[in-house]
């Protein structure tokens, strides 16, 4: 186990699992929507696919968030996801005709029990409270002994 990477502990695993399930659901749904009826709602289905990619990236980034590069990617993807659910949620209320079918971010994720709305806050909280161990700390013996 590398001392430069924080082990993914309990609640972090729960977060990863929820992101993975959302990634799975969003990917499946957008895949079917695009294959079967893309022309019916190209904007909504494109956003659906974008959200799936973001969730997949966020899931991997969280798994590897002990590394500083992945930590930053996690910040970017989760922030993007938060903006996405707020923006698309609002847009779907203002222009419902653009969203004839539910997507994971429409109406703030109501079709997914608002998990897409709540999850990024949880994700950002986790990132703030679990920064990667920096090279400076890593040089100190305490970090190696107490790093969890």
């Amino acid at each position, binding site marked *: 186990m590398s001392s430069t990477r924080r082990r*993914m*502990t*309990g*609640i972090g*695993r*729960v977060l990863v*699992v*929820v992101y993975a*399930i959302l990634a*799975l*659901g969003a990917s*499946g*749904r957008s*895949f*079917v929507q695009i*294959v*079967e009826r893309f022309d019916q709602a190209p904007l909504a289905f494109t956003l659906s696919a974008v959200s799936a990619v973001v969730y997949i990236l966020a899931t991997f980034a969280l798994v590897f968030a002990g590394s500083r590069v992945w930590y930053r990617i996690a910040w970017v993807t989760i922030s993007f996801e938060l903006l996405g659910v707020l923006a698309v949620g609002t847009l779907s209320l203002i222009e419902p005709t653009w969203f004839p079918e539910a997507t994971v971010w429409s109406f703030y994720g109501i079709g997914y029990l608002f998990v897409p709305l709540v999850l990024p806050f949880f994700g950002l909280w986790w990132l703030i409270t679990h920064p990667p161990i920096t090279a400076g700390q890593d040089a100190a013996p305490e970090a190696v002994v107490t790093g969890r």
Partner: protein
Amino acid sequence: MILWFAYVQVAVAALGGLLCVILGLAGRRPSDLTVGALALLELLLIAQIVIGIVAPLAGNPPTGSLLEYWVYAVSVTLLPPAAVFWALIERSRWSTVILGIAALAAAVMVWRMEVIWTIQGA
């Protein structure tokens, strides 16, 4: 799909899921009971795969998108083994919670499959 069997799957998934979440939050590590609940769910989901293949041949075709049904069916069947594997890498209370979350997600997905089969596009 067969409606009563869909109910059975949703019930096992929802009850098993709640059981795992509650036991996990209470501090229990994965046990025969909690992992067993997901194993039972997996058996039902595999049976559902078979039903999904046989039913249209027996005069019970889906009214909705076959593609969408199968994307859900394959995904949901992969969920319990993935959750058990992932959770058992670290046998903690959160692992039990993870089993529960996966089971609850499966409950929602099976319900969605039932809707696709019987209501969507009808």
